[in-house]
């Protein structure tokens, strides 16, 4: 288990009696103070154990006008202990504590109900509002999730992380419907902009160990940041991956360039002063999000596509994250039909 990323725990009285809470507190280091209060603490160095009063599950909101990949999100955690420069959580929820929802029994009920409603295979992840594995040494979420999806082969669970915390995966026989995924950036970018995360080499080593244990793995080149020397850096990154992981163990690869919510730079640009790569020619698209000027992004996707195909061939499932049909056409020379991406990524599942 890595360095403890929190220094206090507050338990909501409404969550005190859940088995998750007892297990979590049992795993917490003895020197981390624990108190009980219904008042949410501030800051990501605090853990708040509480109840999720609503739904744990929802379709990935995606963005209007882009090609959708049919992802679903299950969120037993809100907030991330890592501090990536470009992460929307850093800006969207800067003062939110690491929030753990203890009523996992409710999540299970919601999940089983939803599974009955899904028509065909579905990709499900826990990495939208949190890192799937960063806190796993204390939460045990991975083990719980593996148990949950084991009986549903049509549900393809993706555990997406920037950590190297894979012990829960290695402790069980590999499941065919579980994919361990890593967000990747060049080593220098990891060092400068992904504070608290595992190094690139540690992530790749973790991916190898999981792949050797029989799991499929996935990689997300997201965000590709178009700073000076980006092309060489990302080509090298793919080559490092290619030298480490066999493509036949790879479930999918996604690529996405840096994007920000509308008005992001107006509001937060000052905190990124001097980092020219975060300003670029960032323009609002039809969905309002800021993205790099079209030909710059297109170049990035073409470079990544070229390198990834060199490694994985034409069979490697590669998709663009939150990009328009026009960008798919321009990069891959085809536009996927509605539902096609989801179908390709879940092929053979269930």
């Amino acid at each position: 288990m890595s360095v403890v990323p929190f220094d206090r725990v507050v338990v909501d009285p409404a969550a005190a009696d859940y088995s998750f809470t007892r297990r979590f507190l049992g795993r917490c280091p003895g020197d981390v103070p624990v108190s009980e209060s219904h008042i949410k603490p501030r800051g990501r160095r605090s853990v708040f154990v509480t109840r999720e009063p609503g739904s744990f599950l929802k379709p990935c909101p995606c963005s209007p006008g882009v090609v959708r990949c049919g992802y679903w999100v299950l969120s037993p955690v809100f907030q991330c202990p890592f501090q990536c420069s470009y992460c929307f959580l850093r800006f969207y929820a800067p003062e939110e504590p690491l929030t753990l929802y203890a009523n996992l029994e409710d999540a299970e009920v919601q999940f089983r109900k939803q599974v009955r409603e899904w028509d065909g295979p579905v990709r499900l992840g826990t990495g939208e509002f949190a890192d799937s594995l960063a806190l796993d040494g204390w939460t045990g979420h991975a083990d719980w999730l593996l148990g949950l999806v084991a009986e549903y082969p049509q549900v393809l669970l993706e555990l997406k992380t920037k950590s190297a915390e894979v012990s829960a995966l290695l402790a069980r026989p590999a499941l065919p419907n579980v994919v361990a995924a890593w967000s990747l950036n060049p080593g220098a970018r990891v060092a400068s902009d992904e504070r608290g995360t595992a190094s690139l080499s540690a992530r790749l080593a973790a991916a190898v160990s999981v792949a050797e244990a029989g799991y499929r793995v996935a990689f997300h080149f997201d965000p590709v940041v178009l700073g000076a020397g980006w092309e060489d850096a990302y080509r090298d990154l793919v080559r490092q991956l290619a030298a480490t992981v066999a493509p036949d163990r790879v479930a999918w690869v996604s690529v996405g360039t840096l994007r920000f919510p509308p008005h992001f730079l107006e509001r937060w640009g000052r905190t990124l002063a001097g980092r020219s790569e975060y300003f670029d020619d960032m323009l609002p698209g039809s969905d309002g999000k800021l993205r790099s000027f079209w030909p710059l992004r297109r170049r990035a996707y073409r470079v990544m596509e070229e390198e990834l195909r060199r490694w994985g061939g034409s069979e490697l499932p590669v998709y663009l994250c939150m990009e328009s049909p026009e960008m798919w056409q321009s990069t891959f020379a085809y536009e996927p039909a509605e539902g096609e991406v989801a179908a390709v990524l879940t092929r053979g599942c269930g």
Partner: protein
Amino acid sequence: MVGVRHWRTADPRDVIVANEIFSFSWPTAADHRDLQRSLGRRGVLRPLLCVAGKGSQLALVAGGRRLAWAGSVGLKAVPVAVLEDCGPGELWGRLLADAQDHRPLNPVEVGLYLRRRTAHTGETLGALESEVLPALGLSSRAAAAEDVLWVSGLPPEHRHGFADGSRPLHAARLLRGASPEDSLAVLAVTHGLLGGINKFTDLVRILLECAWRDGVPVAEWVATHGLDSTATGLEALREQVRRRRYPHLSRWEEAFPAAVAGAGLPSRVSIHPPGGFEGGRYQCRMTFSTLDELHQNLLTVLERLEEGRLAPLQEFLA
């Protein structure tokens, strides 16, 4: 405590301007002219708001300009409303009602009102959320007051634009996110420039983003790039900054019309890029009034294509 208002007349010399704490008026030049014109035609019609002072004197809380005018023209009596048994909160409520009875407050005045009221009464903005902020035209949450508080704290020469509406409050939202040095530098470089409020706001945004991108203060960035706002209008300055903020887009925007012009298309055929060139799908538009004309246009476009004269557009396509 319920305030009581007595109406009477008083000699202007008996009305003392005790202090400025109650003053939140920041009239525009037009407001000044309107007031002078009104006083000149009709005299002081609106009573001055006062509280009891020492002896027979009255302490002025609202109406300083009316009082000054009355003194300047030698009036012997002005109407006054004397507030008695008035708690601080109610006094400020009366002041607001009196001011709004005259004309709507501008953003600087709204900010000054909140600053002076909270300083005088010790009330928090949160305590004013439900009644006072809506009465000022703001939504009922303390954060809604941040922009007006910011503009009311500017040096006087920069307040006027926000008071008369030539500087939009949305720009204040952008500027207060910058350092004080940068926000004042932006206001200085745009001082006196006239133009649409959307263009002004856009100029503020791209100026700040340029300086942030390059990691230098706004004043240094402007000097380094040799931008002289006095020699240009707002639109020209915005265009200069925009070219530096979006260098790749600007190059395309300049090159594209040249590429189209070089194709030698008929005057009634035009080619239009998508906004920001996003998506790489272009429109070719033809206007025609006869089928023969349409036919001729199509033939000419086809000829130009075959001659390779549209080849320079290739760079812009998907």
